[in-house]
Structure formats: C-alpha cells, structure tokens
C-alpha cells in the first residue's frame, strides 16, 4: 500500500535528515488529505502520521503545522470523526455535525467512526501537538507548554525542530531553554565538543531520567578512550546524582510534612475536646466528614449562584465548614455530652453512637458515592521544584492550612477572652464558676471550637482524599495517638507529635513497606505511652 504522496514526503524528510537546508519547503511536501487519512486509520497509521509530522516539523510551513495541530487536537479530544471520505472536526465530542477537515464545509456526522487513541498513538500525538505548539503557538505560554511536552520526549524529536524553534523564538527565557534542550539532544553527536556540551546541558537540569541517560554513557567507548569526555561525564554525573539525592531528601521532607499536617488537622480539634475538656469524642472523624460535605455544599451553592467565582469555593468553604460543624458540635454538646462530663467512658460510647448516626444519616440522605469536587488550579497538579522533587499543590494547601490553624488556634486560646475562659474553666471548673464564669457556656463554646477545627480539617482534606460517608473512620486511632503522645492539653505537643509520627512513617515506609511502617510507629507510641502516660509535653501534676 505504498502511497506515492507519502513516498514523496519520505523523500523530503530524508533530505531534511541529511541537513540539506537548501530544499525549499513547499505546500506539495505536505499532503493534508493523506495526513487526515492517517489520523483516521488504524493505530499504526496514526503513529506514522504523527511521527512523520514531527520529523518534518523543522521544515513544514506554519499553515500546514497549524492545520495538523487542529486535527491532532481534535483526535486527542475525541472531536475527530471519520466518515468513509475524509475527516470531520467537531466543536465538541458527540456533536451532530462537524467541519470537513479539508474544506471546512459543515457536514452531518452520519455513520462516522470516532477513533480512540491507544497509548502508543496517544504518546505520538501528544509529541506532535507539542511540536506544533512550540513552532506555531501565538504566545509564549502556549509555546512553553509545547516545549515542556517536547522536553519529555526529546529523544523522538529531530534537532531540526529544536533549531527552528530556537531561531524563531522571541521570548528570551524560552529561547535559552530551547537552546539548552537542543544542546542536550546532541548526546550522541559525533563531535566530541558538542557531546561534552550536551552532557553539561543534561546535567544542568538534573532528574532521575537525566541520571539514567548519563549513566548509560559510561559504557560508551569514548568513556575509556577520551579523558576529556570521561571527565565531563564524571563531573556531570556526580552533579546529577547529588541533585537527585537532594531532591529525594526534599521529597521525603515534604511527604513527611504533608502527612504530619493531615494528622495535625485531624487531631487539632481533638486536642481541644479531649485535651482540654477530657471528652473522648469518637465522632471527631465524622465531624471531619461533615466539614468535607459542607465544602461540597458550598461548591454546589457557588455553581448555582455564582458560577464565575466557582474556583474560590474552597476559600469560601473555610468559614462555612467551621461554623456548620461547630454548630453540630454545640448541638451534640448541649443535647448529650453536657450530661456526661463526670462520666468520660459513657461520653465515649455516646459519641460513638453519634458517629454511627452521622455516617448513616449522610449515607441515607446524600448517598455512599464519592463526592465530585472541582479542583481549582491552586489545588491540582504540581510544579517540579528541584530534580525529581515535585511540589503538589493539594498537599501544599494542606500544609499551609495546618500552619494557619496552629497559629489561629494558639491565638484564640492565648489572646482572646474566650480562650482565657476556656483555659480557666478547664483548669479549675469550680473556681471559675465561683468567679462568675458561665462554665456551661464556655464548655459549649470550647466544644464548638474543637468541632469547628474538625470541620476545617474536612476542607483541607477535600483536595487530597476521596470524600464519602465513611471517610472519617480512618482518622480516629491515629489522631488519638497524636493527642496522647503530644501530651494532653498541649496544642504544641500535638503539633510536635504529628510532625514526629508523620516523619517517622515516611522515613520507615520505603524500608519496610507501608503496613510495617504504620505498625512500627504505632507500637513505638504504645511502648512510649506505657512508660510515660502523660505524653511528651504534659506538665507534671498531682495525681
């Protein structure tokens, strides 16, 4: 099935390969219909079409590239359908009619096939789209996005594409990056100087992949033959290795910190309710769940009332979740726990019943499925910071959230009249009552504060975990361990314990696996508490 038009294209490509720049690019070199046919063909044809485009990317005229880009985009987004003759571009997937790829004429989508991309095809299409974006993108952002795709698959992109992009680039930053990439692409160049420059260029953006690429060069004959090459490679490799090690260390630190902030958020409310009031609130996990559902409620309200501000719903949910869950907590306190302050073990059972009730109430009223959250840009994705260390926004959100919670809670407890009242009542209830403090009201507010903090935890967890009625049950043992280990009544102790447990888990996990890590940490805490029941930071007191 040799297609003469494609043979011609191949010939042009071959010429390009040889670096014969003199050949003028012409419209005849790129057959739009054949390209469309390729994309509508089977998997092999799709790959061929995309790869051929990439190879020709150095010389094709911009309008051909733009045409190819439209088709490729439509294919990736399932907006390309293939009737028997040609290809149709749809405005949205599943639309009843589309524009003919070649003539732009509007035609109905009847009896058309919508090809699904396999992984190999998807990779090829992605690369081709990246090349098109890099070469024809109207603004630096688009071209930058294209560049980052090309960067990931630089091995499949010919030097001509990079050279053309570098020469055409107007943005200085992008231009430098492309130049570096072009330089790095020359790792197997016959020119020793270019090769050494390529090594340096690869080493300049260290990653695990870069390390693997450089390590592979150690078996190159030049490594033994050429001392300069050897020195360059050794230097580059040690630089990359060091950077990767540092990056991995940062990742461990970040993972530990993010796990610790989740633990802290889950435990902070408990530190107030259990630490200051002595109530074992087994419904704390469910309060977290309610916080997450309140967040969902805010999202839905925004969707209905202010769709334009939808991205801000997470921020708006902070006070809503706090107040809503605090209210639930106050109701629980007023109806149930108020009667049980002298019977802590009974309050434990009562809160267990409350948790059972809340889980099932949500299950029956909202359903058991995971809630659908829209993830605004500030909590989805991440940015590679150094080597392989990626800062993921959702975890950073949680870390920031936890930090803010620490500060705010300490301020409330130490600097506000309510905090003073809470501390007075919890230290000496009778004396506080004698001094005219409304102890009942203070209890209620303190419980509300602790519940509200659980609600905040629910907001912080939305971008990280799946939200469903059962999500709270996983937190209860861990958060009690945090509070007790930290020392009852000490919010700072809770913080330190969360950091310690989070860090220990993350450090042990790669060595022993996730299960054993958790077991080891918990056993450690149990042993410690049996030696020192008052925890890390409790004051010695009369017993």
């Amino acid at each position: 099935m040799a297609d003469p038009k494609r043979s011609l294209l191949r010939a042009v490509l071959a010429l390009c390969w040889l670096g014969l720049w003199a050949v003028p690019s012409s419209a005849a070199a790129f057959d739009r219909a054949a390209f469309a046919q390729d994309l509508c063909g089977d998997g092999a044809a799709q790959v061929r079409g995309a790869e051929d485009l990439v190879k020709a990317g150095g010389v094709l005229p911009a309008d051909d590239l733009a045409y190819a880009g439209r088709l490729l985009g439509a294919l990736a987004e399932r907006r390309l359908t293939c009737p028997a003759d040609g290809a149709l571009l749809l405005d949205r997937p599943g639309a009843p009619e589309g524009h003919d790829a070649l003539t732009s004429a509007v035609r109905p989508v009847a009896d058309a096939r919508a090809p699904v991309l396999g992984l190999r095809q998807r990779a090829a299409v992605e690369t081709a789209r990246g090349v098109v974006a890099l070469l024809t993108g109207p603004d630096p952002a688009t071209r930058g996005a294209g560049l980052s795709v090309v960067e990931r698959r630089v091995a499949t992109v010919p030097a001509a594409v990079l050279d053309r992009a570098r020469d055409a680039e107007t943005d200085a930053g992008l231009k430098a990056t492309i130049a570096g990439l072009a330089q790095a692409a020359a790792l197997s160049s016959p020119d020793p100087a270019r090769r050494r420059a390529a090594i340096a260029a690869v080493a300049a953006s260290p990653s695990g992949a870069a390390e693997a690429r450089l390590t592979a060069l150690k078996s190159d004959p030049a490594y033994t033959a050429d001392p300069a090459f050897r020195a360059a490679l050794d230097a580059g490799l040690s630089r990359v290795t060091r950077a990767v090690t540092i990056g991995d260390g940062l990742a461990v630190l970040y993972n530990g910190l993010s796990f610790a902030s989740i633990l802290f958020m889950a435990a902070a409310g408990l530190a107030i309710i259990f630490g200051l009031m002595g109530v074992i609130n087994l419904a704390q996990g469910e309060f977290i769940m309610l916080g997450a559902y309140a967040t969902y409620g805010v999202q839905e309200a925004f969707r209905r009332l202010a769709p334009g501000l939808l991205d801000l719903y997470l921020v708006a949910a902070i006070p809503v979740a706090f107040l809503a869950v605090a209210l639930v907590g106050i109701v629980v306190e007023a109806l149930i726990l108020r009667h049980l302050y002298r019977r802590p073990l009974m309050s434990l059972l009562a809160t267990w019943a409350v948790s059972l009730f809340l889980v099932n109430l949500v299950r029956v009223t909202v359903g058991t499925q995971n809630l659908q959250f829209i993830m605004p840009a500030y909590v989805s994705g991440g940015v590679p910071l150094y080597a392989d260390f990626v800062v993921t926004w959702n975890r950073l959100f949680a870390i920031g959230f936890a930090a803010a919670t620490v500060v705010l809670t300490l301020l409330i407890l130490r600097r506000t009249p309510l905090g003073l009242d809470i501390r007075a009542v919890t230290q000496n209830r009778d004396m506080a009552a004698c001094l005219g403090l409304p102890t009942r009201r203070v209890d209620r507010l303190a419980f509300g504060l602790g519940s509200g903090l659980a609600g905040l935890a629910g907001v912080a967890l939305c971008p990280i975990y799946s939200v469903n009625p059962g999500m709270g049950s996983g937190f209860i043992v861990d958060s009690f361990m945090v509070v007790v280990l930290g020392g009852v009544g000490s919010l700072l102790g809770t913080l330190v314990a969360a950091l310690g447990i989070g860090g220990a888990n993350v450090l042990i996990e790669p060595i022993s696996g996730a299960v054993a890590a958790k077991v080891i940490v918990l056993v450690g805490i149990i042993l410690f508490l049996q030696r020192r029941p008052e925890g890390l930071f409790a004051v010695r007191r009369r017993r």
Partner: protein
Amino acid sequence: MSGAVQTALASPAGPARRAVRDPLIASLVGLCLAAAAVLVVASPAPYLVNALGQLAAFAILAVSLDLVWGYLGILSLGHGLFFAIGGYVCAMHLLADGVAATGVLPDFVQFMGWKSLPAYWAGLDHSAYAFVLALALAGLVAFVFGLASFRSRVNGVYFSIISQALVYVAMLLMYRNDTGLGGNNGMTGFPLLFGWPMGSPGAITGLAVAALLMLAAVLAGTRLLIGSAVGRRMLACRDDETRLRTLGYSTTRLKLGIWCLSAMIAALAGILYVPQVGIINPRVLAPDLSIEIAVWVAIGGLGRLGGAVIGAILVNGLKFWLSAAMPEAWPFILSGLVLLVVLVLPNGLLDLVALRPRPTWLRGAR
C-alpha cells in the same frame, strides 16, 4: 488544664449495685442450662440453633469485658484482640485437624507456597493443647500489656485509647499477607469438628450446647469471684484505687490478675465463636468491634454480669434479625439505643426492670 483531665482520670461512676445477691445470674445460668436441654431434645431449625450458639459466645465476651470494666473500672477498647487470639488458635486447630484427617492443605497455605504447615503449628491438631494454647496466649499477651500499663499507672481513658491502638496494630499485622495466617481472607473452610462434618446438625447443636454450657459456667464462676474478698477489692479498686493502695493492697497485682482472667474468658468466647461462623479474619480486630462489645455491656447494664449477657444477646439478636428484615434502620436503632441508655438509663436496660431503687449516692451524680 488539669481540672478536666482529673475528671477524666477519675474512675467511672458506674453503678455500685451488688451483683452478689443478684437473682438474675442464677436465673440466667438456669436459662442457659434449660436452653441447652431444649436444643438437645427438640432440635429446632439449624439456623436458630447456630444463632443461639453465637449469641452465647458473644455473651461470654461481654461478661469478660464487664468483669474489668464494670467491676474494676478498666474500659478495654481492645478486647477484640483476645477474642481474636482464641478465634485464630481455634481456627488453626480446626485446619490442622483437617490436614491430619484429609491431608489437604488449607488454601492460604498453598497460596503462601508452603509445602506443609509451618513448624509453629506443631501439635495444634490436638484439641487439648490448642485449647490451653489459646487461653495461655491470650493470658500472656494480656499480662505483658497489662504489666506495662498498670505499673506506670495508665488509667481511665488513657488505658482505653492505648488498648484501642493495640487492637488496631494487631489488625494491621494480621491483614498483612506475610504474617502468614491468611491475611485479609483469614481462615475458613474448616472440614471437621471432632470428626463430625462441620455444618452437620449434630455439629451445630453440639457447638451451641457447648457455648451455652460455657456461658453458664462463666457466669457462675465470675459470680463466685465477684462475691469473694477479691471481688470486694475489685469494687474498692474501681471506686478509689489510691485509697486501696494506701491501705496496703497491691492494686497492680489485683488488676493484672483480673485483666488476664478477663482476656482468657474473651479468648474462650473466640474459641466458641469461630467454628460456629466458620471463618476468622482480621475484621474481628477492627477497633469498631471492640467498641461494640462495650456497647453491649453498657446497654445491658454496666457492672452487672447479667446485664452484660442481656445486652450482648439483645444487641446481636436484633442485629441478626434487622440486618435482614430492616437493613436501613439497624444503625439508627443501635445508635438510638446507645444514646437512650447513656442518657436516660445509666444502668442499662436493667433500669427498666428496676430490681431495686437506685442508691442515693448515684442520684447525686450528674
């Protein structure tokens, strides 16, 4: 910040009624014996027999918790661990026995790629050894944990929380496939019970009768204990441990002894439970189940052995019935029942029966 915590450390204001002169226990013991006799004579539907046998096992478990919680003021949220030890050893016995009889290795052993049962299973096909091992193991674990806790005076809610962590750790461990006892799937497919095919009416009735007789024995035994001088010290320790210590008693030893005894009774319940349901898996180690045991005790009547039995039978009987009859309503009924008991009937459902008026000192407590 010490006020609230001191409240938390105080012993539970449990009821102080004297179980010793309690006609309830005698009646329950009689009822168990009568029920066992009825099972043998009338042989009702196997499903009912089996359900009754399971309820008896749960009742034993509830009594074991009531012994430490109601009479010693120690709320264990980890009693599922001892129940599971009994259950696991019993399951190992049944499987080892099956291997000895049929020569077919259990599927999880085949899955682990082992050619025979591991060495530590040696002798488990002997019932007496397995029985002693189950109780001894539960006692030993309880002893080590109790010694560490009671010596450093871990009390009240702290003990509850730490025991909950203990059972949680055990659950994580047993869920690990590499731990070697069937992982998540646990152990199942027991072929024989003393030579009878498992699930035959004879085996089912035998198990239920054994469970009922054991319940009667446990009730009678614990009643004797409660009525003795040791029982009086337990109540004293529950209400004021410091006082008892300053009178020259080693409360650590007292608590440790009762704690180990309670663990062994819980293991006994596990031994009786597993052959009746035909499966053991780490789910019994879930912290929730251990809390539920406390719920049975509280609903029936804390500090009353008879209350524990009634609570366990009532809650589990309702659960068996409602999870088929009114699946949606069961969790709401259970939570409502707990709140009702905690708020209105501090002595559990036995308050409704009002065997005798509440002591005056209890009315004062809020």
